[in-house]
Each structure stands twice: as C-alpha cells, then as structure tokens.
C-alpha cells in the first residue's frame, strides 16, 4: 500500500484580525498551521498503514516555510515528505493547484505506484473543496468525497468500501484502487507524535521540488497563467451601522432582564410568538 496525503499550510483563520481603521488584514503573529481538515486524512492514512503496512508520502505545495507543516506531519508517522515550491506557482487558483499536485503525484508514481490519495475535505483559508476532486479527475482516479468511514479495504482485489456523507443520508460505495478520498471531520482523532518520530521528523531529508522536478513542462498551466479565476477586488464587509439595543442591566436581576427582553421582542415581532407556538 502506498498512500499520498496532500496537506496545506494555512494561516490559523481563527486568529486573523482586520485592522479596525484601515480595514486591512493584520498578518503579524498569525500562526501557520496544518489545515485542520488534512489531519483527519493523515490519521486515516496512518491507520491504514498500521493495518496493511506500506508507505505514507506527504505532498505539500507552498512557500519554503511550508517545510514546518511537513515536518509536523512527519512526526505523526508519515514516511516521506515532498514540498513542491516555485515562484511560478504564485497566484495559482484551484485549477492550477490541482494540475501541479497531480503532476507531482505522477512523478511520485514513477518510484512507487500510488494506491490511495487523501486530501482534506477543504481548507480553512480557501474553503473551496475543489482541489481534491480536481486532482482525482486529472489522475483519472475514482473520487470519494466526504468519507465518514472506511468500511473495508481488500488489497488483493484492490477494492475499497466506504461510507460517504450525502445531504440526506449516507451512501455506502465500493470502488477500485487507485482512488482519491476526502474525509469528513470527526472520522478519527489524530494520534500523538511519538518521541522517536519527532526526532526522525526533525532530521528527515525533505524532498524539495521545483515545477520542473514536479514534472511540469508547460508553465502556462500553473500560477496566474494557468488560473482561469482572477481576484478583481478585495474589500472589507460593509459594517452594520446599527448597534444592538442593550437591555439596561444596572442593578437588575436576571429574571427582570429576561422578562423585559421577551416582552420587547414579542411587542416588536408579534409574528415570532406565532412561529414558536405553531
């Protein structure tokens, strides 16, 4: 079993603030983390390795600093890590990104065939959920998105059975390897890194590939040139001018406050009383 797990280094969006006066992003001090959704996929890949043996290769596209994310991911127990980094990737949208990742996976396959590719269900900075499906299409792999459970894996028959979250239920799907899986959050708990793996991760010789090494011959397919979508405008959301009407709390008991609020609410919106009672 050879599994490739695609990860992305993202700014911790919960810690991003917008400057109240200039309406610009304050990037200073915002930590870079592994996209949290990728960790569920990494853990799933590691669990398959625990059961069936084989290798887990990490793949990340990003700036040189993304090395930190790969080392962190190695410390959980992955075997190898590849960073594809090149100025030519700058400005890549999801179509160009999936092209670059798919090219790199083809290069990886030259050394050892790939049976499974995992990606997170989406990233917390782009939130598009498009790169996983894009990579699968480009590699002509079967695509299993929003997997909530891997039921069985038969390495001889090269068959996998999974539960996939649909809008109104769960699909149980059977498909052939190689395939690409994106996982639902909560499918597992990421393990703790062992001391031995932490030392190994710190010393592990990372493979750093530029676009050529990643097998990309045609530079018009990557970066801004390879991206059909272009950001034409960035702006701050219109702040709402009306602030909340605060219920006067001075020296009043919670019961008083609650009655005042509910009375106010039902006076202002009598229809709400009907919606609740119906």
């Amino acid at each position, binding site marked *: 079993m050879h599994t490739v797990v695609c990860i992305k280094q993202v700014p911790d969006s919960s810690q991003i603030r917008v400057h109240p006066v200039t309406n610009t992003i304050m990037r200073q001090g915002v930590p870079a983390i592994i996209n949290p959704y990728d960790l569920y996929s990494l853990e799933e890949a590691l669990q398959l390795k625990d059961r069936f043996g084989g290798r887990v290769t990490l793949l990340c596209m990003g700036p040189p600093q993304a090395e930190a994310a790969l080392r962190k991911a190695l410390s959980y127990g992955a075997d190898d890590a590849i960073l594809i980094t090149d100025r030519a990737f700058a400005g890549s949208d999801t179509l160009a990104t999936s092209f670059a990742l798919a090219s790199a996976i083809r290069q990886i396959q030259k050394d050892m065939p790939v049976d499974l590719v995992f990606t997170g269900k989406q990233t917390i900075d782009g939130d598009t959920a498009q790169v996983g499906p894009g990579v699968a299409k480009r590699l002509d792999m079967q695509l299993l998105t929003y997997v909530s459970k891997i039921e069985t894996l038969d390495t001889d028959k090269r068959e996998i059975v999974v539960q996939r979250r649909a809008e109104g239920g769960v*699909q149980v799907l059977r498909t052939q390897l190689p395939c690409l899986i994106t996982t*639902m959050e909560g499918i597992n708990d990421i393990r703790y890194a062992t001391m031995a793996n932490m030392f190994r991760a710190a010393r592990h010789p990372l493979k750093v590939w530029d676009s050529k090494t990643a097998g990309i011959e045609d530079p018009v397919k990557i970066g801004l040139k390879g991206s059909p979508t272009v950001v034409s405008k960035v702006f701050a959301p219109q702040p709402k001018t009306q602030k909340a009407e605060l219920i006067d709390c001075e020296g009043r*008991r*919670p019961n008083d*406050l609650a009655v005042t609020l509910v009375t106010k609410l039902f006076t202002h*919106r009598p229809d709400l009383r009907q919606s609740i009672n119906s």
Partner: protein
Amino acid sequence: MSDAPQAVKKPAGRRKLELDPRLAAYKGVWVFVELERGAVHPVSWELLGEGRRLADMLGVELGGVVIGPPGEETRHACRDAMHYGADLCYLVADAVLSNYRNESYTKALTDLVNAFQPEILLLGATTLGRDLAGSVATTLQTGLTADCTELNIDMENRSLAATRPTFGGSLLCTIVTLNYRPQMATVRPRVMHMPARDASRQGRVIESPLNMIETDIVTKVLEYIPDNLQDKPQLPFADIIVSGGRGMKRKENFQLIWDLAKVLGAEVGATRPVVQAGWVDVERQVGQSGKTVRPKLYIAAGISGAVQHRVGMEASDVIIAINEDPNAPIFDFATYGIVGNAMQILPALTEAFRQQLAVARLAG
C-alpha cells in the same frame, strides 16, 4: 493554494478582459437542479431565483439542468424548475443515474455543457454540488468560484462577478473568470432568497442521452442509509436557533442552551471552538466553515461574534446576544443585547419565554 490570497497582488486590470471570440458562442445561464432520491434540494430554487436575475441582466435564457433516473419525480423536477424561474430545462434521464455518483453525473453535465454551451453554470454548495462542481470544472478546464455570497454581471464584458468571503470571512473578494467558459460558481444553501413559485410558468424540456452504461462506471452504490430526520439537525432551514460559544465555559453548561431551545422548539447551534472541543455535533456548527443560517430568531449566548461565525448567521431577522464583555463584536450587529453572565441569563430567559408563551396559548 486557494484562489484567494495569492492572487490579490495582481488585480485583473493588468490582464486583458476581452473575451476570446471562440468563447462568445457560450450563451445563457444554467442552474444545476440537485435532485437526489426523488427530492430537489431547496438551494436549487434559491439559485434559480438568482439565475433569473443574472439571465435578465444579460438578456439570455435561464436553463435548469435536471439529471436523474427516468420517471415522474424527474419530470416533476423539470416542471418545478420552470415554476421557480427557468425558461427551459435540460434533462438527462437514465436508470444509471438513480443514485448520485461522481463519474456518471460529471459525464452527463460536461456533455450537456459541451453540447449547449452556457456562459454561466451555478450549483449549490452541498456535498453533492461541491463534489460535482470540482470535477466538472476540472474536466472542462474552466474557472470555479466556491461559496459565493453575491453574484453580479459586469456589463462591460458580460462577465460574472462572483463575490465570496476570504480570510475566514474577514474580507470579501470579487472573482472573475477570464477567457474560459462557462463561468462556474457554487452558492451555499440559505445565502440567496427563496423566489416565489409561479405554477403558471411553463417551458420546454430538451432531453439528451447519457453516453455511458452501468459497466462503464467503476464505483458502485451498495446501500443508502437515510438519516433519521428526528436525530439530524436541520439548521439551515430552522426558524429559531439558540447557539452557544466558548463563553459557555463548560460542556455541562451547554444544557442551558438545550433547555431554552426546547421551550422555543428551536435548533441548537454552536461556534467552531465549541464543536472542536466536542461539546456538540459538527452538524450544528454555524459560520464560515459550518452552516449558513437565516432564521427568524437567533439567540447567541457566550458568542463573541468573530467574523467566522458572523458570516454564517448575520442574515437572521432578529439576533439576541448575551455576553459578559460589553465590547464583544456581537453587540455591533445584534438586534438586542444583554451584557451579563449567560449561565444566569439563559435559565431566566427560558423561564420568561415559557411563561409568556403559556399566556399566549391560554389567550389564543
């Protein structure tokens, strides 16, 4: 890399905006009508409402795309699409399509696009819609913008201007697709208004075959386990939601949220930190990486109102905020606010609602 931050440095103005003449043949706005197991997802009707507006601006037809098994439910979805604003429907009906599978649906939709060449294609940002949109856009080698909150037409070059939150909702960015067609976008449920249904509207149905048979498809559906709707939270379409954030301090305190929700017949929601701490199920997460909701009443307890949460709930009619911090951003956009300890206010509020509703019931 996402389509958000990196491209910011180079605005579109530096690239030529004239459309390649080969692509000028692409005409019309399409909405993918998400039919799964006999029912259409309401996001499709919301998108038809939005698609109608875009089609009228462009002076073109609005097409609904229905893909599914042959039968009355599929035909019915076509008729409904007209009632919600479509001028015509493109239909691919085949027994192979009775369950959603990426391979067969991608084939059906890409073949339709290549045959009839729409300039805009909209899909719901559901699990099905996102799975399909990503595959179709890659197969067609065109641009796709996810989770848009606003769609418009730049009349200068007839291009779709798709606005979406970026940096977790702290900023908005408008994205255009240059020299690729169709221009694709997904929109989450409840972001756009539900249009009025007009049962007198009629239109034509253009049927196309699926050029694929069952043996061509590698993935097989072994079983479908429908959710037990009673257990399954339905936040996006709830009328009333009571939500809690980190300010609830402990998992046990979340019971106060459930108590109030019970009296109001409301759904329970939560912020991302609360979901990550495992206090409630992920299906209840409201915000940028959770659900978008637009209830009549949203009660936020112990929620500071960070932008990641705000983008998912600010369309609520009435927002009541309870927070200890008088400077919490939630008070900047809530309707009513109480500065106080949620653990004391919530039980009082539950009791006050219980009494007033009981009075109303007696009187009514």
